[in-house]
Structures are given as C-alpha cells and as structure tokens.
C-alpha cells in the first residue's frame, strides 16, 4: 500500500523554523513505523535524523509523537494506525536538536534526582537480600520502565513546567520506595514531596495511555502520593 509520511523536521544549522516534510512511499501493512522511517532515510532522504538502537521495544530510544500520540516507532505497525497518512513529530517538552531527536538531558537529570539505585547500608547478609514474592509483586509494574520518555513528554504539566520531575522519574522512584529491601524510601519521598514532585501530577492519564510497557503510571504516582500523605500523619 501507499503511505504518506508527514514528518516534522528541523535542522538548527539550516532552518529558521521547523517545517513538515512529506514522503510518499510504498509500505507493507506489517511494516513498523520504524521500518518506514528507515526506508525514508536509506532510500529517499539521508538527512532525516532520528534515534533508534535495539529496534525491538526494549532500549527506549525511538519514542516519537506518531499520529498525535506518544509511541515507540519500533512497536507500531502500519496496519495498527488505521490510515495511510502518518504524522511523526518529536516528543514534546524537550528541546529539539534535529528532526526527531530531542535533548534528553533534563529527562535524565530528573531520573538521577530520585536516586534510582538500591540503598541499604546494613551489614551485608551472608547471601542475597531475600524478599517474598508478595513483596516483590508490590513494585513489579515499575520495574518494567525502559526510560523511553513516552510518559513524561505526554504530560501536559511537563510541557508547561519543565521543573516537574515527571512520570518516568516517579515510576523509577516507586520501584525503590516500595522495595522491602531498600532503605532510601524516606529520602525519596521527601524529594517527591517538593513542589517539583508528585503533587504536580494533575491526573491527566496521558502517561498511562502512552506507556509502551503498559505500566499503570497514574496509579503508581497515586501510590507515592498516598505514601507521602499517610507517612506524614
């Protein structure tokens, strides 16, 4: 089938402002959007720039705004888009470096801010830090995050207020706050209780809808909100 790809492009070295470039090409219904982008780059216009690494939905490099929704280009089939015209834009709220490539620095600074690592200064046990399957289950969903930024850059609050840590950072914090072996929960909750933390979430649910890993993000943020709320009373 024929498809028309409208891609929001911008090269700061050449262009005064972003523009829509249109490419008409033959695609297969089973092609992923990423395959089509490859075809455009390799066969039509080599200057098209986008990130991708594993191309199998695990590295989280190719988050894009496809037909108005944040998705991974490598996880969307043409036939799932329901139409032959496809718009592709860079994810919002982060500055565009070139075409579909955005500056992820603020995103990863927020990630670092929540101390996304295991904290436990107790004497090391003889073997592993044991944990019951029930305790492991509590934070199971938040272990699935691949830091693709689909959630954070779909959040209307993040678009207008870049100081908000964003859903991805909160999901990462949740993964450790609710880990029974971790001792850094109080410090993380204090960090998320600031005005850049969980209270910025206005429950628009765009993050939950956008997550390619099906993490119930708004629910996860709600759990952190209640952990702060009920630990202070």
């Amino acid at each position: 089938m024929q498809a028309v790809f409208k891609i929001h492009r911008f090269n700061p070295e050449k262009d005064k402002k972003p523009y829509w470039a249109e490419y008409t090409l033959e695609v297969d219904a089973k092609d992923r959007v990423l395959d089509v982008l490859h075809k455009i780059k390799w066969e039509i216009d080599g200057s098209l720039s986008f990130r991708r690494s594993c191309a199998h939905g695990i590295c989280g490099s190719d988050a894009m705004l496809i037909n108005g929704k944040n998705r991974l280009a490598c996880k969307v089939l043409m036939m799932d888009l329901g139409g032959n015209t496809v718009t592709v834009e860079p994810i919002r709220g982060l500055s565009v470096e070139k075409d579909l490539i955005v500056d992820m620095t603020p995103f990863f600074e927020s990630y670092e801010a929540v101390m996304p690592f295991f904290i436990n200064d107790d004497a090391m046990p003889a073997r592993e830090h044991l944990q019951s399957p029930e305790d492991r289950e509590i934070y199971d969903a938040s272990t699935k995050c691949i830091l693709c930024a689909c959630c954070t850059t779909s959040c209307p609050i993040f678009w207008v207020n870049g100081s908000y840590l964003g859903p991805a950072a909160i999901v990462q914090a949740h993964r450790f706050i609710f880990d029974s072996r971790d001792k850094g929960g109080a410090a993380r909750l204090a960090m998320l209780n600031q005005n850049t933390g969980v209270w910025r979430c206005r429950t628009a649910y765009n993050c939950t809808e956008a997550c390619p890993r099906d993490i119930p993000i708004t629910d996860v943020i709600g759990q952190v909100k209640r952990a702060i709320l009920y630990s202070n009373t």
Partner: protein
Amino acid sequence: MYKGREGQWAFFLHRLSGVAILLYLILHTVSIGSTMLGEEVYGAVHKLYELMPFRLGLIGVAGAVAYHAFNGLRIVAMDFTSWGVKYQRQLWYAALVMAALFMLLTLYANLPRLFPDIFTYKTIWGR
C-alpha cells in the same frame, strides 16, 4: 492537539472551569463592591447583567461550578483511594452527567427570566 483520552479532557475542562469560576468571582466581587460608589453606580453596573450574554453566561457559570465540584470529587477519589484511578473514566462520565443535569436545572429555573415573553410560569423564587 495531543490525542489524549478522557483523563486529558477531564484535566483541561477542570482548568478551564476553574479559570471561568475565578473570573466570575472577580466580576462578582467588583460588582458588589461598586455599592461603595453609590446606588446609581451599583444600579448601572447591575443593569448590564440584564443583557442576554450575561444571562446566558450565568447558566455556563452554573455548569462550570457543577463540573468543577463533581470532577473535584473524582480527583479526591483518585488521590486518596486505590480504586479511584481504576474507575476514573466512569467517574468522569458521572461528573459530566451531573454537571449537565445541574446546568439544565439552572436553565429551566431561569427560562422565565431569560425569555419572559415565552415562558410565563413562576420560577422557584416566585418571580
């Protein structure tokens, strides 16, 4: 426009109705405050509100207040309970229905004031 679902629209409408209520309250306070400048000024200002855009606007304000209130309850349920998030869509539709009902009720109660030539029944205030 980002293609979000119910949650996004619930949020946008909540903001919009919040701003509408704020503007109404400012206008309301200034209008009432005009009594400090004398009866004539107060009368002149309030004569303005007899104009149709203001009369209809009042129905909109009633709808905005009702939506903001009922969606506010939805937000309370989502933030304070673990089930609120799971039923957020249903809760939103319920908030919309309640807001629409309140708006229709306000409209019905105000029909004789809005269109005195057509609707002559007495309003709930007996006027």
